[in-house]
């Protein structure tokens, strides 16, 4: 059909780029740059976030403490003289606190360190309020210590600790009612003399939470224990439930409306906001079933319900990945459907199921909102008992809840603690994800 007039065509030499092609290539380069910029921006925000949190949080693993000699004066600590702990208990922590500050003052004077400008009360304030309490507990447990001179180490107060970490400066001290510039000067002299030191602080991981006035002794012990209880319980509950449900849905369920309903339900539940599970937990487990508020058991129940849909979806995918030829082979030698599934399919799907479960646990570990609703925002200062003693019913808290609770307090020392808690939380998550990667590499096959 050469009678139709010729169509407009691209002319010119191939060896020269015409203007339009140059423009199009420029647009191509710009487009590519947008892509790189998007990736770069996302990753840089990630790094900024991790860097700021880490640099602040790492500080909570160092803690300032004061070390000096304390003579346990029997006249002050045991006025009755009977070495009877019950009577000695009448001397409160205030009495011990005064003893400590007097002893510290004497210790420093003996070494030529001037306490000028710092009253006795101010000196007392530089010692953590936890100090008198722990000394008292020691003495009451062992009254024979009275009269001895011991080498006593106590944490420094939150502000002094902040000074050593750079949070508190002379400028901020001028405006702060809780610390004065003279106290900071004294602190400098104490540092020089080696009385005030900062050391690595493992106790951050083991101590329980502390009240607002004592950020220096606040620790993650209860939170870690609570999270551990909950993760253990969730694993015990969600793995059998999830695997059982997945096996039924994937291998046995007939294709009818009821099964459709279940599947639609599962995919919807996977997308429901976590706070709704918290509401469910509050209404059903606490109000109706009367389980104790803020207990690890209720937390675990709520987290199980939350994690179940994702585990079911992952487990079904693992079961589906096992090729039909395996099932056919088993049926061919006369195994029943159930034997086929449990003896042949399930073992092959196990690596995938395990990795899915660990990932589900990892996301449950980081959940906060539903736990807040079942009461875990409250301050928990004592460890829950061992699980065998009903510890799962004791009030507990969890790592992410602790992060939130500390972040809500106004003292920047608690923000530092919060960041430290995040480091611990992320460390656990990292370990779990590494386990998943290892499992995948070792066990997952390509059919």
């Amino acid at each position, binding site marked *: 059909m050469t009678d139709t007039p010729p169509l407009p065509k691209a002319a010119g030499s191939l060896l020269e780029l015409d203007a339009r092609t140059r423009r199009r290539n420029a647009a191509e380069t710009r487009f590519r740059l947008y892509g790189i910029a998007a990736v770069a921006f996302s990753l840089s925000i990630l790094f900024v976030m991790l860097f700021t949190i880490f640099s602040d949080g790492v500080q909570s693993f160092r803690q300032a403490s004061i070390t000096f000699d304390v003579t346990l004066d029997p006249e002050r600590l045991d006025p009755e003289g009977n070495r009877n702990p019950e009577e000695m208990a009448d001397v409160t922590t205030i009495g011990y606190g005064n003893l400590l500050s007097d002893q510290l003052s004497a210790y420093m004077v003996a070494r030529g360190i001037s306490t000028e400008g710092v009253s006795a009360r101010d000196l007392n304030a530089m010692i953590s309020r936890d100090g008198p309490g722990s000394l008292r507990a020691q003495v009451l447990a062992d009254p024979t210590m009275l009269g001895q001179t011991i080498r006593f180490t106590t944490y420094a107060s939150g502000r002094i600790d902040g000074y050593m970490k750079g949070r508190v400066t002379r400028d901020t001290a001028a405006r702060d009612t809780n610390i004065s510039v003279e106290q900071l000067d004294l602190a400098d002299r104490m540092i020089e003399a080696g009385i005030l030191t900062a050391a690595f602080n493992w106790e951050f991981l083991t101590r329980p939470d502390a009240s607002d006035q004592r950020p220096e002794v606040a620790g993650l012990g209860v939170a870690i224990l609570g999270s551990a209880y909950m993760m253990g319980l969730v694993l015990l509950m969600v793995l059998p439930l999830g695997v059982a449900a997945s096996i039924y*849905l994937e291998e046995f369920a007939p294709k009818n409306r009821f099964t459709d309903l279940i599947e639609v339900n599962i995919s919807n539940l996977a997308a429901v*906001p976590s706070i709704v599970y918290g509401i469910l937990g509050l209404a059903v487990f606490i109000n109706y079933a009367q389980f104790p508020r803020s207990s690890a058991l209720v937390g675990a129940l709520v987290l199980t319900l939350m994690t179940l849909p994702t585990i079911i979806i992952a487990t079904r995918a693992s079961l589906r990945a096992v090729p039909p030829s395996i099932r056919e082979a088993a049926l061919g030698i006369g195994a029943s459907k159930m034997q086929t599934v449990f003896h042949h399919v399930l073992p092959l799907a196990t690596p995938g199921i395990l990795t899915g479960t660990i990932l589900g646990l990892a996301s449950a570990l980081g959940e906060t909102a539903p736990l807040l609703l079942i009461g875990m925002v409250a301050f928990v200062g004592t460890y829950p008992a061992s699980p065998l003693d009903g510890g799962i019913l004791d009030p507990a808290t969890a790592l992410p809840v602790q992060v939130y609770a500390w972040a809500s307090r106004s003292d920047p020392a608690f923000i530092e603690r919060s960041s430290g808690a995040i480091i611990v939380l992320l460390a656990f998550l990292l370990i779990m994800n590494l386990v998943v990667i290892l499992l995948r590499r070792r066990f997952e096959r390509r059919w």
Partner: protein
Amino acid sequence: MSIAILLSAILTLSALAFVVSRQRAVASAGGNLRALHSRPAMYGWFGALSAGVPALLALAAWLIVQPLLIERDLRGMFPESVQADASALTLAMEDVRRVASGLDQAVAQGMMTAEGAQDLTGQPEAVRQLLAEIGVALAADVSPEVLAAAQDYRQMAHDGALWRTALVLALAVAGLIAAAALTTRDFRARNHVERVILLILMLASSVAVLTTVGIVLSMLTEAGRFFGMYPIQDFLFGLTWNPQFRGNSTFGLLPLLWGTLYISLVALLVAVPLGVFSAIYLSEYASARVRSIIKPLIEVIAGIPTVVFGLFALVTVGPFLRDVIARPLSLGDSGSSVMTAGIVIGILNIPFVASLADDIMNAVPQSLRDASLGLGATRSETIRQVVVPAALPGIVGAILLAGSRAIGETMIVTMGAGAAAAIDVNPFVAMTTITVKIVGALTGDTAFDSPETLVAFALGMTLFVLTLGLNVFALYIVRKYREQYE
């Protein structure tokens, strides 16, 4: 018998049934295992299930039903006024339970005998004092009817526990005997066991449905109670949110809805471009090596708990936006704002959008890309004019799903957006969302039956409906338009 001991008893009986049934089956075949229909262990399992399952089911049912029956019986002991008011009744029952458990503790610690506890009468303050000595704190003096009800409660609970133990143990033993009688060599043990297992599997899958039912029911009933105290139109269309500790609060949904939607919009404006362009770059331009490093890094963002992002918003992003943008431009003075929360939620959702966009664009057949490149189009033209339009329904679905996640987000808004309910166009002002108020209402100091607390369930219902609606709509769009080029 305590529940723990009862459970151990059931377990032991089941184990015993296992052994007995297995022995009987093997014996009936004269020791010749081949003559058995099923493997010997199957007969054992049949025995164990027969002893254990009915007993466990009965135990579970009893535990659920007994408190209901007891409460129904005790209701008559209260004055008419208390019986008529549901919330007062609940409070009264709680008092009864507390006193009863206090009396239990008193008996356990040896401060009084069991009969002494049942016969106890006396002045309300005296009883309160007595219980306080044991360590049971009560909010008010113990009124005579509460004390009497508590004593009845103890009696009924005690009797109930006895009957429960008897029934459960009887069922377990009956199961054991029945199994032992049935297990002969021709008995199709495996089939029966498999049927029971199938039932168990089915029950496990209905947990999903039960959860949904639980969510809907619990929220509906409590929200219903709330709307009994506060008109639904005022809730849905109210413009102010002002809960008062002493009552007379206004609960208008609109400021919360505004804050929620505004923050989600900002989040989408951040997540969608960054997510889609990241996905485009990684799937169309990046080399395999680059992709294998960068993709997992972006996934790391998805693995970080939201509370970490919340702290980031509180400590870094909020002050940054306030100092660099809001204050200089006189737009606002607060670190908590819609921008803070919105931007951080957006960042959180970048991996979600990127991974969805990646899947969607990969689903576009390579042949279309080849056709476009063969016609002389550049890669960006191919993406813009062929791939993205073909993937558009999926991308719209991804946007809706990301919006749904942003709406349901709690921790970042709690820590980054503040708690002030307001309707404002300026995004550098603090506004709050539905989720924040749910947390506030349920963790505050107000009594459970007050409207200030129950409003949380109405809010929860709203949130659930909103997110569910978005998810269903997203699925519908994807499904409807996907057929276009399959």
